């Protein structure tokens, strides 16, 4: 039985987390992740691929929007296929598991435009660890200026049908910003390390903030900066669904009518309580 005081603190903390997260609803700086209807489908099963936007793994469904989809695909050992779905529907896509193995699901969006006040933009840069952009704005004396931004999503999810094997691995889908798990997360157990690599335009991205959170306790975030090879390692102590995310921002290309272009990478998967060896 939990202590009444700890329950009270838990409630207050919960409210604070959600209050802070929901206050971010007006910032325009939300995570997007893929939330499949199951991470462990049977062979032949149809899996709904839900898109979620929000913070701290509390999100809203985003229905299928053909104008926003640049790529919406899944890849198994037989190759890459598009995810089918009805426009305007949630889940945004469906796939049928044709064979046992690790499936890589990917959603890449076209760019959306947003204009943020200086306060909101500066806060968002700080929250996402985009120090280089903040420093560049300071050098240009733009810290007090509003920002016009275009942002695009590069979300991935790993789903396993059947039993896990070490040799099964995440694959690069060629997204502009991409997180690639360098070990099969279904082949490791809770408490083990997961190495993840972050690439921008297919090259390792150094010194970028990468954040990992578990659905059961999203406020307890793991954070790390990528090394010069774009790598971070997270010790994932809890089982269940995990979200790993990173944001990268560059000056917007000429003609885009924006100051900055941001890319939001995410990777979701489920960590099993025990690994393939039963440990």
């Amino acid at each position, binding site marked *: 039985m939990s202590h009444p005081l700890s329950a009270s603190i838990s409630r*207050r903390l919960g409210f604070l987390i959600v209050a802070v997260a*929901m*206050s971010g609803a007006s910032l325009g700086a939300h995570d997007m992740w893929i939330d499949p209807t199951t991470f462990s489908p049977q062979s032949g099963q149809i899996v709904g691929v839900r898109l979620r936007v929000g913070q701290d793994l509390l999100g809203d469904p985003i229905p299928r929007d053909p104008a*926003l989809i640049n790529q919406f695909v899944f890849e198994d050992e037989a190759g890459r296929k598009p995810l089918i779905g009805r*426009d305007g529907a949630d889940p945004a896509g469906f796939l049928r598991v044709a064979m046992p193995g690790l499936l890589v699901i990917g959603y890449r969006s076209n*760019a959306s435009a947003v204009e943020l006040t200086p306060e909101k933009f500066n806060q968002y840069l700080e929250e996402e660890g985009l120090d280089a952009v903040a420093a560049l704005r300071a050098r240009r004396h733009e810290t007090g200026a509003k920002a016009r931004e275009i942002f695009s999503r590069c979300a991935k999810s790993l789903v396993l049908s059947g039993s896990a094997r070490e040799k099964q691995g995440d694959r690069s889908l060629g997204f502009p910003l991409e997180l690639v798990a360098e070990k099969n997360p279904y082949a490791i157990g809770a408490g083990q390390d997961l190495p993840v690599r972050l690439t921008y335009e297919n090259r390792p991205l150094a010194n970028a903030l990468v954040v990992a959170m578990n659905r059961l306790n999203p406020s307890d975030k793991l954070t790390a900066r990528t090394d010069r090879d774009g790598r971070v390692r997270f010790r994932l102590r809890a089982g269940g669904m995990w979200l790993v995310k990173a944001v990268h921002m560059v000056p917007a290309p000429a003609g885009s009518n924006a100051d900055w272009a941001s890319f939001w990478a995410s990777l979701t998967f489920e960590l099993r309580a025990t690994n393939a060896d039963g440990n």
Partner: protein
Amino acid sequence: MGISARRAVLALCAVSAVSVALSSGTAVHAHEIGTTRVSVVFQEGRTHGSALTSGRTYDVEIVTDATALVEKIEASAGGSSRPDTSPRHLQSLLAGFDETFRRRVKISFDRSDVRPAIAYSVAPGVDATSPAIATIRLSGAIPQDAGHFTWTYAWTFASYAMTVRSGASGNLVTEWLEGGQPSSPVALTSLAPPVSRLATAWRYLTLGFTHIVPGGLDHVLFVLGIYLLSGRARAVLWQVSAFTVAHSITLGLSMYGFVSVPPRIVEPLIALSIAYVAIENIFRSELKSWRVALVFAFGLLHGMGFAGALKELGLPRSEFVTALLTFNAGVEAGQLAVIGAAFTIVGWYCANRAWYRSRIVVPASVLIACTAVYWTIERLSSSL
């Protein structure tokens, strides 16, 4: 409004926003639009709860993904983040978290907040893959002399549409809002006047008629299929009566929520029923009793189709029965108009001619059957 209609409206909202973004001709697109929808109606002297108010009232309806909302509310209250997702459980959770829910919803008149009465309901999604839908209704009296209404809903991270019915025309005004963003002040100077029962009856009679002619080519072809079987009035009368009784039954039962079959099942079956009737016309010309029974069964299907259309149109809660009966009467009038037109164009002159079957019935039935088979395949493929 029913769930399937709601989902259709949500889909329409999303697609409309996309269309607007595309038509702007820019290289970038609309924000990420969620599935939440908010509609606001102001009324003069309408019933509010069980009491009749003499002044103005407001009625705000939020339609949103029930599980996503409950997860956020539960997390803010320090509870579990993966609740039981059965509609009944979600509804009881929402009702239990009423005070928590109110913290992030604000209705203001001239910058003064009001406390609405809130009713929560959760219904299952249209099919096994669709999420449960929460409908949350906030209502109350508008303070005397209030000039402007402002709305804030901070339980969503995504963009959503708020529609306000304003002005004597009853036109809908839509404002797109980011989660947590207050709406622009809405002027209350010209509220929609109360609609009389007679006006409602006429409106739904017209909607029922236009749902058949010109809006329902599939229903038109089915009625023509019924008509083409035999040139005898008795055959037409039996089939039309069976069809009318059957579709009236399922229209009523569906609208009251006793019957719920997803459109992805009903619509292909409707197309298939048209194909069947037309193909049978090619091989038979006499009315058999089992044909009447089949037409009755097909009528049950078409009634569910009519219900889907009526749910999309929406029914005024205060004149639900009037609207339901007059819509059904309008559908009947539309069908009789189709039969009347068919009789006038070919029936009265040709039905007794020797070549009537070979030159009219069979070619027309083949055409109807081909169209219906195409629709069946199209509807099946779009529902997979």
